């Protein structure tokens, strides 16, 4: 039991199946670890210890009865953006500090149905708007590799917790890079599937045409295991796609020999830290040594992806967040003079600075006289970017490059300049705009801080990404290195 925290889901499953330990023992040991070590990180908004112990007991009973689910008794965490019935669901905001969700998100329901044991809800940037976890109402999360640095965001709590070995897997959401960038900054694996692959039902909305749920793990095999449960059609999400879910775990063992890897020249220009670039180039060389062929591809409009995103995402955010009115749920201002005063003060008090900024940016680009110049224009440019990817994927199986321009930066370093913060997602945003699956895999260290290799695939080609990542992890050991203080 002592070293179980460092094991992958695959290894833990073998231990549970052979009876080496029970889910109750495993859960108890990880909850103890969280109680001792999370004060260093602040990775949780809520630890659901009682619910976890009950779920672990139920999982052990199901196994004893010969009826285990595919993730039976395995510990996971949920980003606090997923609604969990009877449990506080805050989305990192004061606005929802008092919100007890009356229903489960489809992702929550599916993972519970497979027998997974939820240990808690992880900290995140407020309403998933941020790249450093510093916009959370519940305080920033620290990176286990250096406590003075950010774990990235917005799924920073999930990434930090998986890197710190609090659990082998945590859910996340990714609107512009919010799974992949924190995965890169914490040395974990993060996959954002194709838009529509995983149900968004019960996942608090930020930008509905970009948001997608995924998972953060330490190995590609574990990501395949969890994604296989999360993925699939859901009639409660009108953009969910009815497309068969392949056996991701079976698919990862196939060789990448003969597959083509596209390299985008612009992704290695002056914006990229030179040492990070070297680690990524080394990783691509490793993939070539496995028999894949690297070729250059061109995405001529990719430089427009960040400005396009910062029109489309705030526009959708301003619309989605209009539901927080202080009436049906969420923060409500005291002693309002009239309805207008109730709305304005509930929202003014309940939302943090970055969320207000995004709502106002979105309101501006949608307002009379500016719609064509900004919103319509951004939607057109989005089409150009998506077409560039489509052309590229006619010739290659994946596109590989850096996940983030630098390793983890210091907490406080970029909070005053929104544009510098936004540029963290320069390599990841394109996949969201085009609805493509993307993944980050640990590929080395710069001055003791992890670096991520970014892989993007064609629509519904998650299995190709997982296969590349798994084959790469078979010949590298970056993902098995544990941060100091968390061994």
């Amino acid at each position, binding site marked *: 039991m002592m070293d179980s925290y460092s094991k992958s889901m695959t290894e833990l499953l073998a231990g549970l199946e052979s009876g080496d330990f029970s889910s109750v023992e495993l859960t108890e040991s990880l909850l103890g670890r969280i109680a001792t070590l999370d004060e260093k990180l602040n990775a949780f908004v809520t630890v659901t210890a009682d619910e976890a112990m009950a779920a672990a007991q139920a999982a052990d009973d199901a196994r004893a009865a010969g009826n285990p689910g595919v993730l039976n008794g395995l510990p996971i965490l949920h980003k606090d953006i997923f609604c969990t019935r009877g449990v506080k669901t805050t989305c990192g905001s004061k606005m929802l500090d008092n919100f007890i969700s*009356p229903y489960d998100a489809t992702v929550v329901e599916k993972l519970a149905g497979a027998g997974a044991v939820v240990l808690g809800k992880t900290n995140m940037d407020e309403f998933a708007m941020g790249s450093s976890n510093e916009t959370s109402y519940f305080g920033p999360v620290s990176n286990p590799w250096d406590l003075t640095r950010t774990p990235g965001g917005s799924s920073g709590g999930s990434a930090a917790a998986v890197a710190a070995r609090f659990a082998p897997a945590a859910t996340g959401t990714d609107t512009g890079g919010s799974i992949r960038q924190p995965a890169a900054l914490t040395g974990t694996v993060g996959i954002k599937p*194709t838009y529509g692959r995983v149900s968004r039902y019960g996942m608090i909305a930020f930008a509905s045409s*970009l948001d997608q749920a995924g998972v953060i793990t330490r190995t590609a095999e574990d990501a395949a295991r969890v994604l296989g449960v999360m993925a699939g059609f859901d009639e409660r999400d009108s953009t969910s796609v009815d497309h068969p879910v392949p056996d991701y775990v079976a698919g990862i063992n196939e060789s990448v020999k003969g597959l083509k890897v596209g390299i985008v020249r612009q992704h290695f220009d002056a914006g990229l830290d030179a040492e990070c670039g070297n680690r990524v180039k080394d990783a691509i060389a490793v993939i070539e040594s496995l028999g894949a062929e690297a070729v250059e591809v061109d995405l001529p409009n990719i430089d*427009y992806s960040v400005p396009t995103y910062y029109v489309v995402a705030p526009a959708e955010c301003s619309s989605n967040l209009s539901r927080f009115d202080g009436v049906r749920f969420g923060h409500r201002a005291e002693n309002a003079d*009239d309805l207008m005063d109730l709305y304005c003060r509930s929202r003014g008090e309940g939302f943090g600075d970055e969320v207000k900024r995004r709502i*106002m940016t979105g309101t*501006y680009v949608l307002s009379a006289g500016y719609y064509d110049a900004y919103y319509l*224009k951004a939607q057109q440019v989005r089409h*150009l970017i998506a077409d560039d990817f489509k052309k590229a994927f006619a010739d290659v199986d994946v596109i590989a490059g850096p996940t983030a321009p630098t390793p983890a930066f210091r907490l406080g370093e970029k909070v005053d300049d929104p544009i510098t913060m936004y540029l963290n997602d320069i390599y990841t945003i394109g996949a969201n705009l085009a609805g493509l699956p993307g993944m980050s895999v640990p590929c080395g260290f710069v001055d003791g801080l992890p670096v991520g290799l970014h892989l993007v695939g064609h629509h519904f080609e998650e299995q190709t990404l997982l296969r590349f990542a798994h084959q790469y992890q078979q010949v590298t050991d970056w993902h098995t290195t544990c941060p100091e203080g968390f061994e």
Partner: protein
Amino acid sequence: MSLSKDQVQHIAKLARLELSDDEYAESVMKLSKIVDFVDHLSEADTDGVVPMAHPLDVAQRLRSDRVDEADERDYYQENASSVSGGLYLVPKVIE
């Protein structure tokens, strides 16, 4: 500054956000930076390009209009600050 304080006040009103004086000052500066940044889009040649509203080439799915959920009104209303007789209460709208 590409945005004036008047413009930011108008946007905040449309967005139903009450801001303090300090927040206004900061918003004018930071929103102007964001607007300047997204203005780069005007350099893209988009003549004749169809706007993309959805990342996949699919049509909106419809469902049949039937009741398929249990009535849990009282449970849902536990999240509201002010309810009475199954109704949500707000400040008086009509005198």
